[in-house]
């Protein structure tokens, strides 16, 4: 048996307190939820070791796309990956997140240890160095069009490589739309 109730506002009998829900409420896809709520989560993984000696940011396989439901939404971008700087002299490897491709908007800080990005590694001894990397950044794309977020990386120079997904370790990029 199904019955339909049509009303504009639900209110407690006393005018205060809460309305309890004893069973499941479905069809919430169009609900207008409070600010700060997570509206959707998108995640992508990659486990392919990738290395570059380019001193300009290059695209890594770590990328994900999301379509915000509102222009006021924020996107929390989190990245977890193993990163690697190859041996050979004094060098550094740098990592950042682009909104779009590497020719898009670099969300990283412009003075990140001498270069743009969110994360970097440097080993003055000249030996290789592998570490875990984590990035969390809250972006405001101000659009309802599909947005792609890409992890970019570059070498500092000296023909030494910057790597990611070290030893083919699985890396993850997660996008969470936060209600504005």
């Amino acid at each position, binding site marked *: 048996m199904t019955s339909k109730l049509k009303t504009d506002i639900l209110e407690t009998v006393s005018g205060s307190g809460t309305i309890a829900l*004893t*069973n499941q409420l479905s069809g919430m896809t169009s609900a*207008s939820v409070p600010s700060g709520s997570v509206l959707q989560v998108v995640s992508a993984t990659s486990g392919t070791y990738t290395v570059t000696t380019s001193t300009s940011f290059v695209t890594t396989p770590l990328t994900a796309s999301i379509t915000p439901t509102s222009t006021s939404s924020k996107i929390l971008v989190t990245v977890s990956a193993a990163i690697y700087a190859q041996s050979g002299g*004094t060098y550094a490897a740098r990592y950042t997140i682009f909104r779009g491709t590497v020719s898009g908007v670099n969300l990283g*800080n412009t003075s990140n240890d001498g270069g743009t990005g969110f994360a970097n590694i440097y080993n003055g001894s000249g030996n290789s160095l592998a570490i875990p990397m984590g990035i969390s950044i809250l972006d405001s794309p101000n659009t309802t069009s599909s947005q792609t977020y890409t992890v970019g990386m570059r070498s500092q120079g000296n023909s030494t490589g910057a790597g990611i997904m070290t030893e083919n370790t699985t890396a993850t990029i997660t996008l969470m739309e*936060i209600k504005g």
Partner: protein
Amino acid sequence: MSTISIKELSHPAGEVIKIASGKTLDLKTQGSVTMPTGSVLQVIQGTYSTTTTLSTTTYTDSGLSATITPSSTSSKILVMWTTHAKLDDGVGQGWGCKLMRNTTAVYTDGTNYRTYNNPNGGDTRLTIPISHLDSPSTTSAITYKVQVSSHAGTTSFNHASSETQITLMEIAG
């Protein structure tokens, strides 16, 4: 427009309560809603990009902080932060991190080092992610602060004005 005063919504066995196709249930613009346990209620982020040089095992404020006001005493706060450390060359260089909830330490690296360096040939610089799930049991504003220390020798936080971030997520309890 009509208002219905009720105490509880229910439905017949085998059914669920649905929002009619194409209609919107507004949980935001007036009144409030109690979200299920585990829901994210708010997200706050702070950034900091000033270098702090350390040469002591005493934890000092790094400058990286963010403030959040929980909506319930049962809420948990997921704190995620990154730190960029530079360890100078030398034997036993180390670097530690502590998370403060106002004036209370809620996370502390052991023996003043999360990272350790012994290269004898140059310094080491690296970006480190840390996270901690806190239960503050308050609805007052809380400031989470990242403190840092040196295990030995000289280290620096946010070397060369590197930007680091701290993200606070309130999780419904």
